[in-house]
């Protein structure tokens, strides 16, 4: 009795669908287009169309009308018919509604044209198109991330330029010789020798350029140049300290908002994904192939990477099974091993951090000695912290990837964990550098003459360190491409020995490259407060890096064997960038709120902390504004704001939970509908007594009751008889 009579033998003995299935509205929307056959079927089905069928088509029609024509899954001819119908209908509308509809269409077309124009103006459009065709969307996401950073840095520089540099440039009465008074507040006998010499050595020029000292110290580049008085314009006075403070807070806030906005879309998609049923296989089969790929080599690479991914996933399944089979003894052994290895990792990190601290201290002391030994040695002394940081960042990922093999995690978790460790290493090394500078600064309180350059104007020193880090980072990226990857490629191509072939070309590893540029961006964020021209330098740096990396990718590298998926990468990039931003905010907020600005230089020399510029400015406002701002800063406002935010958060969480529940219910309902459908078709076929053929056995028996349908089913029984005709000749098949 339980035959699955969804299929039956049609006209020419072929197994076709039950014609009832063809009439279902869900199927109608998927009809294949056969112009001739559709006309035929229209003709033949005209007579067969019952009342309920006609109602269905009308309902579908009204649904389709609400959607834009271009989104309908119909062939062009039918879409044009639709469009003509709509224009016809619109003629009969009242004139004002007609005007509204026309105006809406015009606005829509205008916005479409504007979008096209804006997207054609996007930087590097053709380069990115070329990369996408050759390497797919995974690597593309890295380059569009780079483009985003160029734009971000440019905007930050514009903010600093407009509010801090421009007023000083157009200052009607500059008093240059008063701005940088290194002698003010100087209790030591000797002065640091920053006096200008008559004949400046060529080497010293280069050294100055590379380390931000000497001639660069008294330019707009560094903090020390900006003055602390107000700038008197004819119309108003411009408080430079306040502007400097607000511009700093402004660029941090702007970066945060922009990153959050950019990641919001990716996050939405991330939330839709159901964490329990992560469908790795379906995703790979149906959404795995990049339709953008146009070159043969890229197609081969994509195929290989898909193959590799599938094999790895099958391997994952096997490992999961193995992990489930682990005995207790095994588990203890593995946990013990993991603890040991993690402690080893922490030990390695501690050693690196200590090296950075020592290098920074040594570098500061060496500079203070003022003995110019040799150009190269001086350069090394200047760049010692940067060199140590770069070495540490180079060695530790290799170490981590070796260690993780012994820890016996699942492959997906391995990659994520190694990445987390590398992120931690990179970003904390900057923190350690700043910490070592800060510890030196503390000594200024007790011994101001020991480290004169630092104590007299410490913000300039910090700015110089950040400047050096940026320049060195750029030099390293350039040198690695030229002096490591290029010879490696030459070696692999021209050397015949099997060792070279096995070593292979450099892999373009997206995570490591992304960490590199996020590291650079974090330095830029921290350094902009001390070195306002740093964003401009970073913009140029990232601009050049784009072309360097593109060249390196095309000529020297092969894409990684374990490819990075575009979707998760979007989230990953912005997540790491956000961590960098949060890390950058910490030193800046500490230095704004706690540290005493140097008295000899800079816009905040008159205040006890940099933050004081704001309350001082508020004091100068009229009484009403003062009261309002005091209210905003008071505890009552803060507490009530916090309470309101918490309430909003709880509401949104509850809403999300409710939606999730509804989604689960709908999912279950979908399953039941499918079973109901099959059950009903079966009953109808029995009622029709058409010849049936056994198909593949079902997993669930349809013996479930569908009580909601019983009553309606009996009333539609006559309809069922009406609908039971011989199958249409060619609705689906040729």
């Amino acid at each position, binding site marked *: 009795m339980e035959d699955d009579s969804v299929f039956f033998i049609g006209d020419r003995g072929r197994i076709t669908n039950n014609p009832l299935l063809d009439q279902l509205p*869900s199927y109608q929307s998927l009809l*294949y287009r056969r*112009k001739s056959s559709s006309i035929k079927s229209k003709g033949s089905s005209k007579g067969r169309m019952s009342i309920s069928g006609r109602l269905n088509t009308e309902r579908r029609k009204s649904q389709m009308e609400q959607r834009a024509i271009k989104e309908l899954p119909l062939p062009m001819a039918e879409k044009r018919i639709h469009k003509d119908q709509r224009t016809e209908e619109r003629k009969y509308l009242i004139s004002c509604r007609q005007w509204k509809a026309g105006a809406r269409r015009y606005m829509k*077309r205008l916005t479409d044209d504007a979008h096209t124009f804006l997207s054609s103006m996007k930087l590097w459009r053709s380069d990115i198109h070329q990369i996408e065709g050759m390497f797919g969307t995974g690597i593309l996401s890295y380059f569009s991330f780079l483009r985003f950073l160029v734009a971000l840095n440019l905007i930050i520089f514009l903010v600093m330029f407009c509010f801090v540099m421009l007023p000083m440039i157009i200052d009607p009465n500059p008093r240059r010789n008063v701005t940088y008074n290194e002698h003010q507040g100087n209790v030591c006998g000797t002065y640091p020798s920053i006096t200008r010499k008559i004949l400046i050595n060529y080497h010293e020029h280069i050294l100055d350029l590379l380390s931000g000292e000497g001639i660069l110290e008294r330019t707009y580049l560094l903090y020390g140049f900006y003055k602390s008085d107000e700038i008197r314009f004819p119309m108003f006075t411009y408080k430079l300290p306040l502007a400097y403070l607000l511009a700093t807070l402004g660029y941090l806030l702007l970066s945060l908002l922009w990153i959050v906005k950019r990641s919001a879309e990716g996050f939405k998609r991330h939330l839709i994904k159901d964490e329990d049923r992560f469908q790795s296989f379906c995703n790979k089969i149906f*959404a*795995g192939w990049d339709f953008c790929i146009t070159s043969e080599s890229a197609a081969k690479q994509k195929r290989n990477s898909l193959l590799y991914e599938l094999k790895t996933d099958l391997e994952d399944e096997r490992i999961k099974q193995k992990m489930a089979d682990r005995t207790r003894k095994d588990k203890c052994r593995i946990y013990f091993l993991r603890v040991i290895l993690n402690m080893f990792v922490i030990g390695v990190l501690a050693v690196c951090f200590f090296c950075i601290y020592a290098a920074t201290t040594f570098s500061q002391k060496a500079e203070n000695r003022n003995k110019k030994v040799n150009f190269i040695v001086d350069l090394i002394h200047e760049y010692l912290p940067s060199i140590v940081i770069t070495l540490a960042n180079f060695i530790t990922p290799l170490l981590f990837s070796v260690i993780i093999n012994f820890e016996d995690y699942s492959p997906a978790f391995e990659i994520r964990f190694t990445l987390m460790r590398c992120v931690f290493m990179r970003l904390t090394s900057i923190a350690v550098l700043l910490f070592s500078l800060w510890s030196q600064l503390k000594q200024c309180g007790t011994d101001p003459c020991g480290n004169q350059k630092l104590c007299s104007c410490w913000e300039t020193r910090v700015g110089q360190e950040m400047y050096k880090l940026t320049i060195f980072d750029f030099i390293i990226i350039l040198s690695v491409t030229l002096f490591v990857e290029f010879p490696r490629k030459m070696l692999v191509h021209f050397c015949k020995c099997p060792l070279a072939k096995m070593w292979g070309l450099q892999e373009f590893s997206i995570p490591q490259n992304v960490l590199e540029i996020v590291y650079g961006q974090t330095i830029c964020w921290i350094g902009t407060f001390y070195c306002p021209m740093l964003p401009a330098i970073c913009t140029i740096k990232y601009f050049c890096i784009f072309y360097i990396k593109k060249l390196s990718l095309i000529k020297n590298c092969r894409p990684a064997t374990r490819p990075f998926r575009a979707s998760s990468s979007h989230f990953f990039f912005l997540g790491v960038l956000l961590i960098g931003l949060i890390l950058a905010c910490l030193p800046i907020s500490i230095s704004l709120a706690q540290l005493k600005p140097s008295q000899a230089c800079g816009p905040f020399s008159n205040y006890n902390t940099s933050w004081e510029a704001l309350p001082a400015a508020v004091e100068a406002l009229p009484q009403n504004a003062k009261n309002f701002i005091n209210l905003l800063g008071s505890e009552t406002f803060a507490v009530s704001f916090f309470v309101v935010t918490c309430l909003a958060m709880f509401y949104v969480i509850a809403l999300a939970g409710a939606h999730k529940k509804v989604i689960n219910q709908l*999912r279950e309902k*979908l399953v039941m509908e499918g*079973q109901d459908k099959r059950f009903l078709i079966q009953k109808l076929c029995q009622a029709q007594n058409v010849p049936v053929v056994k198909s593949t056995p079902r997993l669930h028996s349809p013996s479930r009751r569908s009580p909601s349908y019983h009553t309606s089913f009996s009333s539609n029984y006559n309809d069922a008889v009406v609908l039971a005709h011989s199958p249409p000749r060619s609705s689906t098949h040729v």
Partner: protein
Amino acid sequence: MGNKQTIFTDEQLDAYQDCTFFTRKEILRLHSRYHELAPHLVPMDYTNEPDCKLPLALIVDMPELKENPFRNRIVESFSEDGMGNLSFNEFVDMFSVLSEMAPRELKAIYAFKIYDYNVDNYLCKEDLEKTLNKLTKEELTPEEVELVCEKAIEEADLDGDNKLSYADFENMITRAPDFLSTFHIRI
């Protein structure tokens, strides 16, 4: 701006702009691409809607489709006769659906058609196996292919009939984050 083009009338370009995701300039560019495929067959003047169809073999030779393992199925599902002969309307339709601006639902409908090799409105195991073999150029062993297809059906099948109906497929696509970014061709 420039010479007034004589390939299409203004109404035709209007209609194309409303019915597809392309602008006028892009439609004209598409027409020149279509013309390039067979300069002798494709007329330059489309104002009176000539009935000209290009065969499958010419279309799948385009650089955008040449490396795609599903190129035959893509062209077939947009052709009216199911054999892959595309008129200009269908050509534009195809690239419109595959463009960046097309919404996910529209792409899902056509993706389902493309992957449905035996045209029975279900993605059964054979369809999946064919898809997988096309993707990997048959470099997986038959046992691995079977295992992967089983797992895929297990993941996406909701109504338990051991094959994927459109509802299952669409539900799976909404949870596939890569779909929108990979299922698009730039022309």
